[in-house]
Each structure stands twice: as C-alpha cells, then as structure tokens.
C-alpha cells in the first residue's frame, strides 16, 4: 500500500475510499498555467455563488409556502417576522443577479480566449447546459413570490410552448396542471426550483472533470508542454480565488445592504392578479437580450425558435469558429468583432427593456440579425481570411516579448 497521506487513519480510509486523494489531486496538486489572469477567477466565483444560492434557498424554503393564497404573504412573513429573513431573501434574490453576471463574464472570457476550441468542446457544452439549467431555475424561482411580474412572467413564458404546432395547447395545459397559471403550477414550479440546483451541481462536477482532463486554457491560448509553465493549484490559485471572493463579497454586500431591490421590478410587490395584466411585462435584466430576440420577430413560432437558437447556437461554436488560434491576443480582426458582439449583446438587453415599437423594434431587429450573423457568417469566414499574429512557443517567450 502506497502511503499517500502522513495521517495513518486518513491513509487507511483513502486506500478504501479514494476521495481524499482525488480531492488533493484536484484542489492542491492540479498543475495550472502560471499566466492565468483575473478573468479566470469567475469559474470559482460561479461555484461559490451556487453554494450561497443553495444554502440561502434551503433556509427560505423552511418559511415559504407554495400556495396561491399564502405565497405572497409568506414572502412578506420572511421579510418582516423571520429572524434575518430579510437578509436571507435579499441574498437569494440579489445572488441570482450576481450569479448571472458572473456566468456572463465567465462565458465572455471563454469567447475571448477561445476556450471552447479543441480539445475543450465538451467542457464548453457542459457549460452551456449549466447556463440553460440556470435560466430554467431562475425563471421558476421568480414565479414563487407570486407577485404580478411572477404571475405574468410565468404566463407569457409558458405560453411560448403554445407556439408548438398541433400539440402546443395540450403541452401548455400539462405544464400548468390546469387551464391557466394557478395553484398546481405554483406547486410544481416550487418542486422543480428545488430540484434543478442539485442537477446544476452534478453538471458542474462533470464540467470540472472535463476541465481537469486537459487543464485550464490560458490567456495566450497555446498548449503548454513544459512542466515549468504550470504551478500547483494550491497555494497559488486557492489564494487568488479567495482574493476574488473577497472583492466579490464587497460588491455583493453593497447590493444586499444598500440597493437590494435595484435589480428587481417594483411590480412584483403587487400580489398576483389573474384578471389584470401589468402594462409592461419585462423579465429580469439577465433575460432581456433573449427577450429582445423573441420580440424582434413578428411571427410567434419563429420568434420562439430564434430565441432558443440564440443559445443553442453556442453548442456549434467550436466548429463555427474555423480559426486554429485560440486567444484573441493573436487574432487582431476577431478581437474587433468580439467587442462589437459584446456591444451588440448589451444593445439587445437595452431594447429588451423597452416597448417593442418604433425605432426600438428596428434596433432589436438589426441587433438580432447581427447576433446570428456573428456566429453564422463572420466567425466561419474569419478563420480563412484573418492573418493571425505569430504565436509564442511558450509562456516565457510571450512575457519576454511583452517586456521588450
């Protein structure tokens, strides 16, 4: 028996249940590129946020009642009566926004440094699956307080399924468990909102397994061949990740304590009324770009398909991007298009918050078209025409170039 640990009991246990050596491999020894910048902090930030969401959500579930007559009041009960209930609820609602912010930055990092390219395609896919699960979880969770935006958001989004030909209406009735969004709907949404985060945990686990197979990509995007280019995860990146947590908690705290409702919609403090539609239904800010795509298209089914395609197209990204060079640092032309794409995405979010009329509608159509143009036209041809800068042989050569 090889002694992997100094502690005898630990060695004995690990010989029979090797989780400790696996954890040590992943969190301590794991060789990590030495040139990772702060954009690589957002993976661990997403991880800590997921844990915060699960813990705060579990505590909320101990006081929340999933019933149409009681849900709204039980949320107010949490806010006013439960010890620190206001804090836990604000952590959970602001945490959802923070989670999306972090994940959007994490995805943008992947796009900039080409982290989706060979051999990390499956790692990328798993990330998109996590993103899709997050969207579902956030939507289900937003329904639970049973305010006006909860109710009408749930109505509009479930009605998207009615766009399916022939069986659409049956599917919607099945999703609702009734003839409108009502008590059975609230009950099952609560059940699924509780389940999905644990499925996210499982997929995150696979995401990390896939990550550790080839290791992290890095800012210069070349494959690292020599051992000297890597350093052990602990203490170098544990300390860097913890530093990131500290910065993040400050920002998180500012929102939780000083502006907890800034990112939400005031109409959700009006109890749900199935007979009155709010004048202007908008989703939470993190769904606005996709909402804009949905509304940009005047045909119901096509609008729904465009919205879904805008996310599913990411699965094909490793093949739509034909360039062999990963990092934007060596792709002068793609770098410009990258920033145009990010700007365009923010524009989509902005028009998503406006009433789809007049020039807002025109802007949303142009932006939607550009979104797909980026993936289906610009990326594929760029790989053939772009003259990339010479790649360094290793990390050290690159840093020398930078200094001189």
């Amino acid at each position, binding site marked *: 028996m090889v002694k992997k640990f100094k502690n005898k009991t630990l060695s004995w246990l690990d010989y029979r249940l090797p989780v400790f050596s696996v954890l040590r491999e992943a969190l301590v020894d794991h060789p990590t590129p030495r040139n990772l910048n702060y954009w690589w902090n957002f993976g661990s930030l997403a991880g800590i946020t997921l844990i915060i969401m699960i813990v705060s959500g579990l505590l909320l579930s101990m006081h929340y009642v999933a019933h149409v007559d009681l849900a709204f009041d039980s949320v107010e009960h949490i806010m006013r009566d439960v010890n620190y209930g206001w804090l836990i609820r604000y952590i959970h609602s602001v945490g959802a926004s923070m989670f999306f912010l972090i994940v959007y930055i994490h995805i943008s990092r992947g796009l900039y440094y080409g982290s989706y390219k060979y051999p990390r395609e499956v790692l990328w896919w798993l990330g998109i699956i996590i993103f899709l699960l997050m969207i579902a979880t956030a939507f289900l969770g937003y329904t639970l307080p049973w305010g006006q935006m909860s109710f*009408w958001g749930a*109505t*509009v989004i*479930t*009605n*998207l399924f009615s766009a399916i030909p022939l069986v659409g209406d049956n599917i919607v*009735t*099945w*999703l*609702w*468990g*009734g*003839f*409108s*969004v*009502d008590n*059975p709907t609230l009950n*099952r949404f609560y059940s699924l909102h509780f389940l999905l985060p644990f499925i996210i945990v499982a997929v995150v686990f696979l995401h990390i397994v896939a990550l550790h197979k080839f290791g992290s990509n890095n800012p210069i995007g070349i494959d690292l061949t020599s051992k000297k280019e890597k350093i052990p995860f602990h203490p170098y990146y544990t300390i860097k990740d913890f530093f990131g947590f500290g910065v993040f908690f400050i920002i998180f705290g500012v929102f939780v304590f000083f502006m907890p409702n800034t990112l939400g919609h005031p109409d959700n403090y009006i109890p749900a009324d*199935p*007979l*009155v*539609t709010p*004048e*202007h*239904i908008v989703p939470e800010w993190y769904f606005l770009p996709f909402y804009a795509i949905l*509304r940009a298209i*005047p*045909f*119901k089914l096509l609008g729904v398909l465009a919205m879904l395609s805008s996310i599913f197209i990411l699965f094909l990204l490793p093949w739509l991007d034909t360039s062999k060079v990963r990092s934007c640092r060596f792709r002068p032309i793609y770098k410009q298009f990258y920033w145009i794409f990010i700007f365009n995405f923010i524009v989509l979010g902005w028009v998503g918050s406006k009433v*789809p*009329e007049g020039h807002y509608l025109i802007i949303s159509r142009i932006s939607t078209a550009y979104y797909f143009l980026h993936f289906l036209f610009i990326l594929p041809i760029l790989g053939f025409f772009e003259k990339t800068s010479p790649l360094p042989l290793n990390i050290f050569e690159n840093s020398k170039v930078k200094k001189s």
Partner: protein
Amino acid sequence: MAAVGSAFAIWPFIDSMNPSADVLALGSKEVDLNDIDKGSTKTIKWRGKPVFIKHRTDEEISQAREVNLENLKDPQKDEDRVIKPEWLVVVGVCSHLGCIPLGQKETDVKGDFNGWFCPCHGSHYDSSGRVRKGPAPKNLEIPKYKFVDKNKIKIG
C-alpha cells in the same frame, strides 16, 4: 418491446401533471345575464381565466358582420362566433402570449376596431373578438356554452 412497455409505464407519471379531477370539476359555471345592460360588458372568472360577456348593440353587431372575411388573419364569420347575436362570449386571453386585453371598462382603450386592445404586444380585436392587427395569431377563443334559459348561460 421493452421500450413500448416503458412508455406505457411512464404514462401515469406524465399524466399526473395534467389537470386533476377537482380542477376539471371547476370546469362549468352559470351566469345570469339580466344585469348586463345593452352596450355594456361583464368579466367573470372561469377556469382561472377571465371570460368577457358583451351585450352588443345593433351597431356593434352590424359592424362585426360587415367585415370582409378576406381581410381577417383568422377568418371566421361573426355568425359562427355567437349563439344569439346580441351576446358575445369570449375567453379574455390574448392568443399571442396570454395577456388580458383592455376594453372591459368604460374608460379602457378599445383598440382600432371597437373591441379590445392587448397592451402587452399591441394586438387589436374587433367587436366579435377577432384579431385585426398585431402579433396575435388567432381570434379570442369562444368557450363552450349554452343558454339554459332565456337569460342565463352555462359556460363549460
């Protein structure tokens, strides 16, 4: 074979999410029409959704019947949408994404066709509840109903 068997075995699980017996039992409702004056409307709640009952004036009826069917997105004769011409009964849910159109109150915007207007994405309905403008693909749905006596209907 195993796949077919599994499919049958899964059905009860899937069907358990469909409307339950008590939800289905709420399926019908009787409404007295005596208190709805000519030219006014009433909203009642049926299966969790609003139902608009409109006591139409002669002018509204003739407006609805004079329309050229070729101009309609979802062509349907007004005669096929009512049992008695003065009573229009429609489910008040926009066929686009399920919002509730305005037009039930005196002060509401009634849209360009003297019926209803959906504020969410701008669909206009006429005095027969047919979509005339906007993203909605279909007319307002007519629930199953019948006259139990001269001034009373049973919906569902």
